[in-house]
């Protein structure tokens, strides 16, 4: 299935977004094969490198304002609950500019999928720190190093009552493809934090490759277990030996916002 458009891809050579695009296209092709109607899929993008992705996909799309992709996605879903709505947003858009929408969408358990393409910096504005940049991160606005500690977005998602919480890694294409499929198939608010190195401003490839491991997914309905796993990594990169789990951390079934509206 060809999901490409005629748009020229303008990501930096070797950018993790290419890998994510590949995982996503494979996931969508597989969902369409399983019977999801292509015309019912809507991708919603925010602003930033990550959000260029909608131009490269021959799918219904809504390019939103910075930080607002989740809010716009909610509107689309509420207007037509038959649609499968998937958000592409960066760490800056989701955890800085639009954090309130993330929290409330999770709390509502609205049936949308949020893929946060997390490179831990504002790349398209040349590398300033975001909410998930580690302590000490040096960027053009923090030449002496970031004096804030990073936010753990998975912990926030759990506290916000998201019903599907996962973490992926851009360079594990097959693993990410599978996460995306499960996230889209989940009835309710599904959230995947996708770690990705930014080759131009914050290349964490080595750090991620050394420390990331796939979790054995069991007992996904326990908040306590989920929290334990989530707290294995705090989004800092201060020590070289760091365990960074990826996979599904938490998954429960709860009535969705749209179901409760009826």
């Amino acid at each position, binding site marked *: 299935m060809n999901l490409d458009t005629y*748009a020229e891809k303008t990501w930096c050579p070797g950018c993790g977004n290419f890998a994510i695009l590949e995982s996503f296209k494979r996931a969508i092709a597989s969902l369409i094969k399983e019977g999801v109607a292509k015309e*019912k899929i809507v991708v919603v993008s925010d602003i930033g490198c990550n959000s260029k992705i*909608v131009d490269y996909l021959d799918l219904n*799309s809504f390019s939103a304002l910075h930080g607002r992709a989740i809010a716009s996605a*909610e509107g689309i879903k509420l*207007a037509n609950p038959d649609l499968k709505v998937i958000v592409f947003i960066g760490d800056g858009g989701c955890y800085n500019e639009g954090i309130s929408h993330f929290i409330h969408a999770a709390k509502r358990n609205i049936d949308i999928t949020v893929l946060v393409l997390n490179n831990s910096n504002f790349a398209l504005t040349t590398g300033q720190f975001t909410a998930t940049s580690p302590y000490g991160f040096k960027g053009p606005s923090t030449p002496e190093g970031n004096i804030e500690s990073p936010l753990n977005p998975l912990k926030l998602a759990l506290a916000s009552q998201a019903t599907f919480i996962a973490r992926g890694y851009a360079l594990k294409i097959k693993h990410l493809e599978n996460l995306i499929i499960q996230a889209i198939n989940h009835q309710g608010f599904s959230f995947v934090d996708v770690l990705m190195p930014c080759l131009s401003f914050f290349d964490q490839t080595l750090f991620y490759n050394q420390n990331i491991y796939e979790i054995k997914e069991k007992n996904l309905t326990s908040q306590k277990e989920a929290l334990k796993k989530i707290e294995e990594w705090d989004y800092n990169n201060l020590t070289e030996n760091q365990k960074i789990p990826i996979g599904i951390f938490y998954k429960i079934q709860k009535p969705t916002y749209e179901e409760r509206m009826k």
Partner: protein
Amino acid sequence: MAKLNNIFQNPKKDFSILIGGAAGEGSRASGIVIAKIFSELGYRVYIYQDYPSLIKGGHNFSQIRVSQKEVLAPTKKINFLLALDKRTIEGHKKELTKDGIILYNSDELTEKYQGIGIPIETITQEEKGLPIMKNSALVGALVKIMGIDWPVVEKVFQERFHQSASVNLKIAKRGFNAAPNLFKIKKTGQKALPLFTGNETLSLGAVAAGLDFYLSYPMTPATGILHFLSNNQKKFKIKVVQLENEIGIINAALGAAFAGARTMVGTSGGGFALMTEGISLASQSEIPIVIVESQRMSPATGVPTYNGQGDLLFTLTAGHGDIVKFVIAPGDAQEAYFWAGKILNLSWQYQTPAILLIDKLISESIFSFDQNIFGQVKYEAPLLWDKKGKYFRYQETKNGISPLAFPGEKNVVVKSNSYEHDEFGLTVEDKEKVEKMQNKRLKKFQAMRKEVEKLEAVKVYGKKTAKKAIITWGSTKGPTKEVAEKLGFKMIQPIVLEPFPAKQMKRALQGIEKIALIEMNGLSQMEKLLNCYGIKVAKKILKYDGQPFFPEEIEEKLKNF
């Protein structure tokens, strides 16, 4: 009482009743009951609601103006004062006409006043009513004074109070028995009209034009729309949601409209400020959206429950970039109904943001509403895709309006873009493509300008041949119209403010030698808009203390005009 009696004999005269007490004492509900009684008798009524930003205590009042003909403004002078507490008397007795009558709570107020004391608390206790029901005793007394037939009271109480009607009626009857009869008010012979706030009528207008979805974050004085539509969402077959903040509201609303739902949001100045990024997105992505901006006294938090018209220039310029949108400012509940429907249709026909600019006096005042207008608003179809060939969301057309299709339609890919884009909807940055899409939108703005001149965008009242004109807009229409008609001026009310109906305005101003401007802000913002079209104002009457304009004060200020 001779002069008062004259009010009832002379059909041109009208009168005002003020009922007040602490917040939570029920004066507002009783104001509506009184207004309904007069409506039953064929009178036209207008209720001004005055309340501070608190829930219990303070001082609330309603002024009910009653007339044989349409009334759209409160008066400075009142003929009847119904006081639940001392603060109401002390605060309003100076507004009472010389022969006015005070009906007061004699359980609380032991002094002698110009009027009749009723032991409303004792009565309520003896009839085993709730404290809030004491209002009914005052209503009963008023009804007796005016010689209104008891069955009218019974009918209104039954409709208003349902289960508690019988206790309220007992209390009202005791008040009735305790007061003398001074006049005999007659039926007018006119049809009884229902009472609605402007928030309610604009909601009805939008529903008549096919509203599917309303989103809002509570903010006075627009909150009434959220409540009215929430309570009626099943009946109207619409969805209503409240989200985390106004930024969430506008961005979700644009998503909903993109998915095909006719969507409206409502707020006041502060919330509107947060929504402005969405106006720009709507214009760039060509997404229809109606924003109700009900002004209150600003800047900032301002005086939340009082009136102002200080958001005019902000509304006209809101949204970054080259944007033309519709800004429409109806002047009363009737116009709010009509224009809410019209603006929803317009926003879809032109795929553009559109602002219905009103204020507290339209939102929260209660008007006699002539339902004859119902037939005048209906769903008007937007330009839809003909399902032929490949779909281009931003297709180049003669007038710049591209056909609409929605996600979910077979064989269609709908791409909406906040970046500059090509006809399919993909991001572009090269100069030819950028300019091309800008030009497409400029063509559409030109079509919007033409459309406005086809609408009745400027209303003219008063003496049409007069050499002096008063220009006013929004709720100030009410008191100004009254004065213009009385003093023989022409009154011009621009309703569509953007695109500005320059041709219609020019026609309305033909033969006019001198212009006075009346509005409720300190910087005479409408004057600045008029100046853009070469219209010069000789006299300005501005009010910016949160209170409504009274016809008496406008008349006084126009004495030497």
